[in-house]
């Protein structure tokens, strides 16, 4: 068992950076992410017997992590909904940043997505899993993953699209001036 536990330790160590990246993208908070990773490592260590030898260890760990995250979400659903609500209302477009998508805005937009859509988008678009693998990790149909990814992309585009050069040009500049003028006259 000693050599087993040593090689398991090495394998887990090698996958920690990926687990942290997944956890941060999922919950948007590095401290909570590290707690999720810790719980994942403990569960993986204690339940190694349920890992199918020869299958993808990384996918197995991602599955444990997302199950941990989602059951935590269910426990604190009310709290999470409140927080997401306030984040959604915070999401503002900054006229000065037209022309590129600000990284902060992107992170915030990502956190506003429904968790299942965010998860699908991260698994497929960032972690490099196929739709089939992502479906296995999330225990849902491949079609469900595809539609979650599409909805997530559409929503991000909608939220962030306003900040792209599409809005450049006299029309939007005029609108901005009008908006500012109206805004300031309302204040006075």
């Amino acid at each position, binding site marked *: 068992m000693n050599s087993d536990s040593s090689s398991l330790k090495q394998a887990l160590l090698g996958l920690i950076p990926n687990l942290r990246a997944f956890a941060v993208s999922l919950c948007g908070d590095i401290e909570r992410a590290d707690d999720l990773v810790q719980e994942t490592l403990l569960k993986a260590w204690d339940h190694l017997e349920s890992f199918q030898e020869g299958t993808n260890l990384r996918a*197995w760990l991602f599955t444990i992590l997302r199950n941990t995250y989602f059951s935590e979400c269910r426990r604190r659903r009310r709290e999470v909904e409140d927080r997401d609500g306030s984040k959604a209302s915070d999401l503002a477009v900054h006229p000065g940043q037209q022309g590129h998508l600000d990284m902060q805005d992107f992170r915030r937009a990502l956190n506003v997505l429904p968790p299942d859509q965010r998860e699908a988008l991260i698994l497929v678009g960032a972690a490099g899993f196929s739709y089939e693998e992502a479906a296995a990790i999330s225990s849902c149909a491949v079609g469900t993953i595809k539609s979650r990814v599409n909805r997530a992309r559409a929503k991000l585009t909608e939220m962030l699209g306003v900040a792209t050069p599409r809005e450049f040009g006299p029309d939007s500049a005029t609108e901005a001036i009008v908006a500012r003028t109206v805004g300031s006259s309302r204040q006075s």
Partner: protein
Amino acid sequence: MAEKDGSTRLSAPAAAEPEASQQEQRKQSHQSMGQNKPYLAHSKNDREREGSMDPPRPSDLYGAPRGMLDRSLQAQLGRQLRAIFSDVAQEPVPERFIKLLEALEAREKRR
């Protein structure tokens, strides 16, 4: 409460069993997965999904049809998503996890 072989299982508390049973259900699909895939997403498929990896050119962005703008925006979203992921994935393993795994290994050896 000894089992047939006389041993009693110490591990596997009920709390963590959902993973195990789901694992069982997913056995089939897991087995079809590729093994040891690269950890970060830069695969060819990804590029196909995200559209062009080239940075958007001004001519694409100003006065181009809507579909083109959306594609370049999609590509940008893809890049930012991967950036968020890989920023953290490239950080060294925090000390707390190294200690945790050492403790788990030490516990294993004492058994």
